[in-house]
């Protein structure tokens, strides 16, 4: 089989595995985003208990490798199997990679995203906040009307990087978690194919191509959002979005 044929056949056989990576990302990013906003607000809070808890969480999850986090959570869940999951009859679900993967990815992206949002929260112009307070806005109203729109605009480029990074991090899931019923993601499938014919260049190149293309699509989508968020900003002060995955993490 020639190299080109191998590539074409790999594009076909890696299409379904790519959906697993997409699934892991889609299942963890929205939840992680909501949790991250709450965590960032806790970190920004004036209450020392909340702020300290958030800081420790963020530091622990940003300071340790996702790979170890995956192992750690999986083995912890396994050790609770006999006492909790099996008696409750949920072991098949709780220990399934399609549940555990997004769980750990969510815990992980929550920390990184919270750090990004926390940084952006601190850039909200004090004058605009003063105006919101002076006109009698409640704390929630201040958040809705002034704090959030400013925060999300500043945070968006870094968050775009985080989304791309998280998508790429989904490649790690099946190195730590067991493969069930031939459900494989890009990396797992590419490695599987490699051990059949040792054609390292075709399989990994196609897998890399999938990652590049999907990362690029994410980037284009986020770029469109970024233009909307910056519509009101004078051109010279706009936050530019450049394709630079992972650089900021």
């Amino acid at each position: 089989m020639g190299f080109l044929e191998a590539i074409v056949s790999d594009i076909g056989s890696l299409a379904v595995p790519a959906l697993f990576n997409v699934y892991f990302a889609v299942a963890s990013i929205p939840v992680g985003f909501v949790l991250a906003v709450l965590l960032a607000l806790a970190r920004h809070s004036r209450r020392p208990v909340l702020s300290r808890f958030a800081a420790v969480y963020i530091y622990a999850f940003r300071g340790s490798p996702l790979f170890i986090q995956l192992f750690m959570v999986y083995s912890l869940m396994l050790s609770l199997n006999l006492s909790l999951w099996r008696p409750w009859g949920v072991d098949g679900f709780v220990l399934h990679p399609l549940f555990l993967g997004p769980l750990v990815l969510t815990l992980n992206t929550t920390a990184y995203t919270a750090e990004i949002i926390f940084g952006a929260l601190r850039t909200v112009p004090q004058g605009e906040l003063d105006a919101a307070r002076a006109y009698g806005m409640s704390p929630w109203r201040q958040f809705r009307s002034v704090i959030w729109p400013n925060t999300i605009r500043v945070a968006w480029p870094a968050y775009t990087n985080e989304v791309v990074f998280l998508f790429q991090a989904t490649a790690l899931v099946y190195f730590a978690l067991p493969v069930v019923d031939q459900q494989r993601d890009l990396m797992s499938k590419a490695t599987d194919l490699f051990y059949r014919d040792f054609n390292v260049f075709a399989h990994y190149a196609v897998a890399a191509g999938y990652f590049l293309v999907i990362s690029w699509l994410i980037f284009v989508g986020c770029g469109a959002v970024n233009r909307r968020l910056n519509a009101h900003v004078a051109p010279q002060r706009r936050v530019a979005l450049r394709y630079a995955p992972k650089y900021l993490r």
Partner: protein
Amino acid sequence: MPDWLTNIVGSDVAAWLDYVTNGRHLQWYASFGYTIGAALLGGAVALVLGLTAAALRRSRFLPVRLASAGYANIVRGVPDVLFFLFFPLAFEQALEWIVATGACSVEERAASSALWPPCRDANIFFSTTQYFLLASVTLGIVYGAFASSVIHGATAAVPRAQLEAARAFGMSERQVLWRVQIRQMWIYALPGLSNVWMLLVKSTSLLSLLQINDIVMWADRLGAPNFQSRAGPIHPDWRWRYYLVLLVFYIALTWLSERFFRWLRRRAGRGMIAAEA
């Protein structure tokens, strides 16, 4: 465990000390050296590659510039784990292919039923040290791409007025580059390089995927349910405890790295950035 120590700490603690100092644990502790060594070596390679690629990106020749930019963007655009698996395998196959051109006759190739290597003589087995070096270089290649972007950006961040001032005093372009631009570049590059280093440190957790008996592999072995034929079960599944130790290790490493980079930045930025509290 010596008796005098047992008398001091009591038998329970002594049993624990006994457990955590047994031979397999000592091997585990030793494997932390691999991790740190690979990080340092990989970091050095990354820095050299990063500087080189950044310099090539300013080359006068378009193909050189494109190659440098391609290296930075492609490596960064795919997951690090993909490259970790790909590069050592590709390197090994390339070596085997070169060896095969000399070692394998046409008959041998035809007779070989395996898809790879071409013939048995061309099969290469790396030693532990070679795998370690290969892994470190792989780390260096991946994060060299990141470092090159950081350095490229930092070089551009040096204020043009500084360079003009140097030219005004008659420095040659080479002098301007080395005496002013690169000196000042470090201050702009350090935060980014610190980020890259943190990524690199964390990705050393992937060493086990590169055939190295690293801390992760040992944690998995030591934590697995443990039986001895005479003594019966020693412990049930303790893996999460061992992984917890690794988590703490990495957090501590991050913390130390942060302090180091803060110190470095203060030193490098003397006179240029206000002292931080």
